[in-house]
């Protein structure tokens, strides 16, 4: 336990009569990538919201980098090093790509021109420097997803929560974006990623976790996890899945 970056102990969250997250525990190591899959409504995004501070769990405990962050707000967690992307990407309107990335950079240092320089550096590192001056309204979906990741990275996170960054992309774009994830990990970041495209997650994940009805169905080596009969049953039993 002492070695893990993030440690989640039995967190639960209820909305009215619905148990969105029902006792999930997880340990995430440094520079580890864990893919999270599960049918629609399995509580994946709710789980992320508990980790990023959008929701406070009803019970359970979240420890990050050795500190208890269970009840802290999203901004504090982001400052501690929990970055996240959103399922529906919404770049800041009326601002260029570089300006979008400057928003988190300005949190710790109010120097605007310095933030701009850092933003350009980061965009260069991620290979999207050519987009810097593009207004976000003119970006394609794949580009917007990359900007979303760049923006989250600008908070200099130790942990990055990626919520369906591949959703809505065609297979060529998936191939384009996927290496991005490993690039990010190589910068020293641990990653939890929610994805629907199982084959894509398997490719980059060290371990996989399957959620269903707010509970952990299986967790472990990707190859083993997808052969787990419980997992297969959950997927076959669910009509909404492709």
């Amino acid at each position, binding site marked *: 336990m002492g070695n893990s970056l993030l440690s989640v102990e039995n967190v639960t969250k209820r909305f009215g009569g619905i148990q969105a997250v029902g006792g999930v525990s997880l340990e995430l190591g440094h520079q580890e990538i864990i893919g999270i899959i599960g049918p629609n409504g399995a509580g994946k995004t709710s789980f992320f919201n508990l980790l990023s501070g959008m929701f406070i769990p009803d019970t359970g405990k979240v420890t990050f980098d050795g500190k208890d962050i269970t009840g802290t707000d999203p901004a504090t967690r982001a400052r501690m090093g929990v970055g996240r992307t959103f399922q529906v990407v919404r770049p800041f309107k009326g601002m260029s790509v570089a300006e979008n990335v400057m928003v988190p950079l*300005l949190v710790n240092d109010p120097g605007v021109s310095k933030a701009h320089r850092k933003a350009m550096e980061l965009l260069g590192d991620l290979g999207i420097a050519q987009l810097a001056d593009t207004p976000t309204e003119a970006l394609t979906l794949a580009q917007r997803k990359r900007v979303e990741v760049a923006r989250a990275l600008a908070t200099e996170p130790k942990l990055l929560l990626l919520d369906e960054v591949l959703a809505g992309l065609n297979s060529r774009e998936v191939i384009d974006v996927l290496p991005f994830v490993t690039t990010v990990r190589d910068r020293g970041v641990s990653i939890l990623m929610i994805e629907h495209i199982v084959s894509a997650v398997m490719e980059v994940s060290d371990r996989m976790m399957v959620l269903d009805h707010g509970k952990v169905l299986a967790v472990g080596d990707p190859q083993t996890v997808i052969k787990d009969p419980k997992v297969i049953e959950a997927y076959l039993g669910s009509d909404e899945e492709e």
Partner: protein
Amino acid sequence: MKKLSLPWIIIPTTVALLLPLFLRDQYFLHISVLILIYTGVTVAWNIMSFGGVLSLGHAAFFGIGAYTVSILYVDYGVNPWLGILAAIIFAAVGSLVLAIPLLRLRGPFFTLATLAYVEVLRLLAIWAVPVTNGSVGITTPPTQGLAYISFESRQPYYYIALAFTLAAIAISIWIYRSKLGYHLRAVATDEDAVRALGVRTNRVKLGSLLISAGMTGAFGAFAALYFFVIEPDTQFSATLYSIQPALNGIIGGMGTIAGPIVGAIIMTPLGEWLRVTFSGASQGVNFMIYGAVLIIIVRLMPGGLVEGFRAIARKTRRGGKGRGGKRSADAKTTKEGE
């Protein structure tokens, strides 16, 4: 990171500075002072629009400013210049009542709360006779001189108003390009996302409220001295100082730097003309036209004049290659994707 284009700052400023030398007509100068006051209030109002927040509470801050300077001057003999300083502080403190709705309510609900606050202050100003002199209002002393911001001619008023307005514009530009401005503009799109990036959005929103209210208080105070007489129904008039600045802002372009300035310069003389034309038996018609304009304008050009000019400029520059059309098509897809 666009550079400020100097000609766009120097030319209008010079024109504004030289204007009274060429046009000595007092009525014209009066309209010009009104334009400057409205420009200032609209620019102040617009600072909250950077964050996508629509306030209709600025008549409250305007009125607090007016009452602060007048009460301090008349009852306590405080010099009006100090009074204006106090007006800024009181208006900012007075805006804190709206901090609770600002942080707890979104969109239309906050806007309604701000409008209600104006009405509440108007009623309080009528009720608290010992302090405000009730419906009768307060008249400031006629002592003239720069020290008392009271003059025979309108020219000195013009220059003081111009100084205030230029300061307001400078503050607005500075905020827009600073850390606060970046965070506000981001909040306008998606507050949750901004929070997840480590920004304490409550502070950002509160900051914009306090600055915007304080600036409005200064203009309320100046206007009180300019008009000599203040009374609740005028100084706390939602139509005059909440809806009018918002209308200026929306016509010029909400959340942009130039929008509120353009809007106030166009709308103020128009409003004055309507008011003079429809007085007496047809009272109310001028504001009926305002209401109708509001309904029509948001349908015809929701982006305001500045956005319209930009679109035209883009088209002419690109020689009609249809690039502008493509961009708006993209913007549409973005909207639907949300």
